[in-house]
């Protein structure tokens, strides 16, 4: 059995500017055996990016839940990436029409992980980091896709998004957790030079395995506000997707 805890905190910069938090998360528990989580960071320069982020987080969870088995079985990952992106862009176009804005005003990154039975699929566009705990060793599965400069990245709405959409799939075997973080959280918890997580991430995963999600979320929110938000002005979000301890399945 898998469970997930998430935290999303508005950054100092957006508080001062009286702008909404542009990080969004979504969790879809689809019994009996599919669990999908996603996180998106709306582009600071895009007017309605928080709406775009909300839209793509919900859509990717539904798409991965509905098509998991087919996507996993497909050898041709390019066609899967194209289909996923077309689903996302279709919903963004509809949202742009409703909101009366250009689609680029809804720009955001996207990170998602789906687990079903003994398999997983990961999807990543843009910055932020996805990590995996395999045989109790925490490793980065998907690194941030930044340009050279800190304020450059790729968004779901970017014209070259398809060539930057990264797909991962595999057998779960000894994997017992995934972690997804936005670039704001990564600013404090991911080391760019060594391309590894700070040790705190492993501790958070251990706690998430042992405690109920609502307790983890409350504690994380307070800690993010108290500490992480002091080292970055950006919005911060995190999802811990963990397998229940002592769960042999």
């Amino acid at each position: 059995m898998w469970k997930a805890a998430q935290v999303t905190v508005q950054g100092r910069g957006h508080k001062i500017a009286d702008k909404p938090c542009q990080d969004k998360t979504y969790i879809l528990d689809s019994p009996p055996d599919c669990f999908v989580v996603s996180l998106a960071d709306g582009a600071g320069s895009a007017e309605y990016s928080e709406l775009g982020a909300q839209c793509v987080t919900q859509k990717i969870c539904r798409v991965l839940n509905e098509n998991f088995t087919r996507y996993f079985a497909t050898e041709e990952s390019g066609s899967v990436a194209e289909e996923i992106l077309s689903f996302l862009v279709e919903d963004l176009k509809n949202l742009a029409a409703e909101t009366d804005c250009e689609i680029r005003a809804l720009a955001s990154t996207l990170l998602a992980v789906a687990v079903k039975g003994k398999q997983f699929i990961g999807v990543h566009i843009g910055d932020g980091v996805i990590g995996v705990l395999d045989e109790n060793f925490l490793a980065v599965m998907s690194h941030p896709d930044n340009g050279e400069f800190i304020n450059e990245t790729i968004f779901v709405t970017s014209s070259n998004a398809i060539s930057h959409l990264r797909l991962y799939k595999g057998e779960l075997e000894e994997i017992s957790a995934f972690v997804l973080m936005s670039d704001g959280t990564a600013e404090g918890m991911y080391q760019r030079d060594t391309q590894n997580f700070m040790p705190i991430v492993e501790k958070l995963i251990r706690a998430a395995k042992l405690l109920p999600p609502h307790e983890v979320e409350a504690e994380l929110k307070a800690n993010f506000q108290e500490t992480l938000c002091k080292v970055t002005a950006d919005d911060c979000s995190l999802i811990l997707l963990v397998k229940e301890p002592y769960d042999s399945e």
Partner: protein
Amino acid sequence: MEKISDLLKIRREDLRNDGTPRVAICLCLDVSGSMSVVEFGDFKKTGNVVVKDGKKYIPVTGGVTRMDELQRGIEAFYEEIRNDAKAQYSAEICVVAFSDTAECISDFANIYRQETPHLKLGDMTAMGEGVNMALDLLEQRKKEYKSVGVDYYQPWLVLMTDGAPNGDPNELERAIARTTQLVSEKKLTIFPIGVGETANLETLARFTPKHHAIKLEKLRFKEFFEWLSESVEKTSQSIVGEKVELNTKAISQWGSKYSAETKELEPWPDELP
């Protein structure tokens, strides 16, 4: 014994501590003899006449020179950056002075490890050599950021001159080619600024793909450096991932646009050079 909920405690030392993204700024400044031209203030003519490089000068005592105003502008700029809570950690300034040769008179460092540089007059205007040195230093600094995992913004190059280049022409062409390529690839922001009536704006405009330069109005160094420090502060306060929009409208308070196409000066438009 550690409680489970203690695992969720995040202390400052649990987080990466080099998180402030840097803005590298190189001031590439003309300190040739013509910067000693007196522009205003109380001065007395010595009665002599000097002809230098075919130009006639009347030596005076007293008065305020272009160099005096530039020095004051730099001092105000350093002070502004030191006084800004965020920019003091984010901005890293380097100064290259060019006259007979190019010299780095203040290398990149955090502003608290730097003294405000003092400019010294030379003779010639080795602009190409100066810009090439500035680009090399910016490139080296970016490598250093990368090697230690420090995030950074697009670097800035401020090029200021009151004359025409008379260094090695090959170095000048190389500097122009390198700069325009970097600006085209969005890897550099350049401010090519002409000072006084003798500045060769035509050459300065060649440093940008759009062939635009900025003519500094009267000796408004102070206004320019105030604008520059505000822009650095704005960049350092921007959120990661956010495109930084500089207040280009405010450029018109200290400069006007020179276009190589029209060869005219006009009010500053809403864009960078």
